[in-house]
């Protein structure tokens, strides 16, 4: 019996908003696909491009970065820096031939459990036809 491809998503979630939002989804028993590996970071602004490349190298099929809405960052400005920096990461990944759907960013507040759920559902749907990410996967 052929196994259905299940994309593996690494989600880098900021502690104060997005991670709390994902917790709210859990507490409210909202169902979303179990394909996500959540990693809590203090702020989306603390995310270095190294983390994203490392996620792809270790076999992630998709990477999601989620932070507080602009203006609501717990550290005031972190998400603004993230917005700039990760825009460059996204363009660079597309430039070298990684499917643009594999790296996504979102603003999810602590109250947006439903939005988080929908983002994950949509992400999994978009990754399924793309198949396994073997381009940047480690071949050590």
């Amino acid at each position, binding site marked *: 019996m052929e196994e259905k491809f299940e994309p593996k998503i690494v989600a880098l979630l900021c502690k104060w908003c997005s991670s709390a939002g994902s917790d709210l989804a859990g507490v409210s028993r909202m169902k979303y696909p179990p394909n996500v590996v959540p990693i809590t970071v203090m702020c989306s602004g603390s995310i270095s*491009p190294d983390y994203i490349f490392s996620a792809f190298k270790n076999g992630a099929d998709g990477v999601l970065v989620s932070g507080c809405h602009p203006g609501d960052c717990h550290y005031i400005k972190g998400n603004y820096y993230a917005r700039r920096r990760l*825009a460059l990461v996204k363009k*660079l990944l597309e430039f070298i*031939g990684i499917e643009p759907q594999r790296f996504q960013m979102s603003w999810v507040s602590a109250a947006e459990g439903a939005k988080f759920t929908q983002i994950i559902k949509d992400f999994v749907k978009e990754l399924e036809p793309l198949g396994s990410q073997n381009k940047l996967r480690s071949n050590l």
Partner: protein
Amino acid sequence: MVSLDDIKKECKSILEKGKVKYIIGYKKKNNFYLSVPAFIEKVNEIDQLIWDPTCVYNLVRYLRDEKLRKERQKNPDTRPVGVIVKGCDSRSINVLLQEKFIKREDVFIIGVTCEKSGVIDEKKLNKKFEGNCIKKIEFNEDNNYVITLETGTTTVPYKEFLADRCVDCSHNTPLVYDVLMGKKVERSVSEPFKSLGRFESISTEEKWIFWKKELDKCIRCYACRSVCPMCYCDECVVDSINLAVNPDTTAEEKAQKIRWVEKSPVRSENFNYHLIRALHLAGRCTDCGECERVCPVDIPLRYLNKKMEKEANEQFGYIAGIDPEKPALVSCFKDDDPQDFIR
């Protein structure tokens, strides 16, 4: 035409007066037509200086060595270092000033304009004159190249052998200098990112095939990193060497030590290295073209950095190395930065 005599006169003057410790310039390599970097300490060495189309090196790279040297000395000589810069090199100095890596008083800048043309691409030259020995290349009054071969002298229009980075350049006059040699000639490039056009119309898969083929050649010699004036980190992301190992360190602890890029020159590590480097240079690279020139296996590295330059310009209105007082690309933001890629 830039007068070499004027350059020599200025260098002689500042060296004689003790204004600078030494001057970093260009001199001719023995028995070869290419120039090499020169470090002039004594006045009687000034005659070694040259200025010709083979002066491709970005000498700002050596300001890093000078800084390291000063840090190691107990009572360092605090006089500035003289350095001969072209337009592209002067932007590198601006980036170093912007990042407070060096102070303005640490460097005495002898700016030289490229006037109409620029420097040569050695590879294009070798292709055309394969087998024929080149003895010398000089600028003439119209900024074209006068090439002296074993078989005779020929003048060629500069466009034929101009380095690619000069084709895209609109900063042919140094932006920061203490003295300026040569005429200021306005140059504007209508399509500064034309070279990226070949990637615009191809599919994701075709882009991957292109980069796979190019980066599989990489032997991780790190010439690109070493020649770049902006890659000045004491410990680079690929070096990860800070690991205190004692007899109690367990295998698990050693295994879990973070190493972003392994030393093996396999595809995933090569991509990792080049992608991280392109991002670390976003908003800092001034397209001096040295990384591509020094690569022993001919990887077209300028495309990666040019792409970041294009995004910085089009999305954030930022050009590297123009104003050292402004904040760097990734250490500032605007309220209306584009965010249509964010859900």
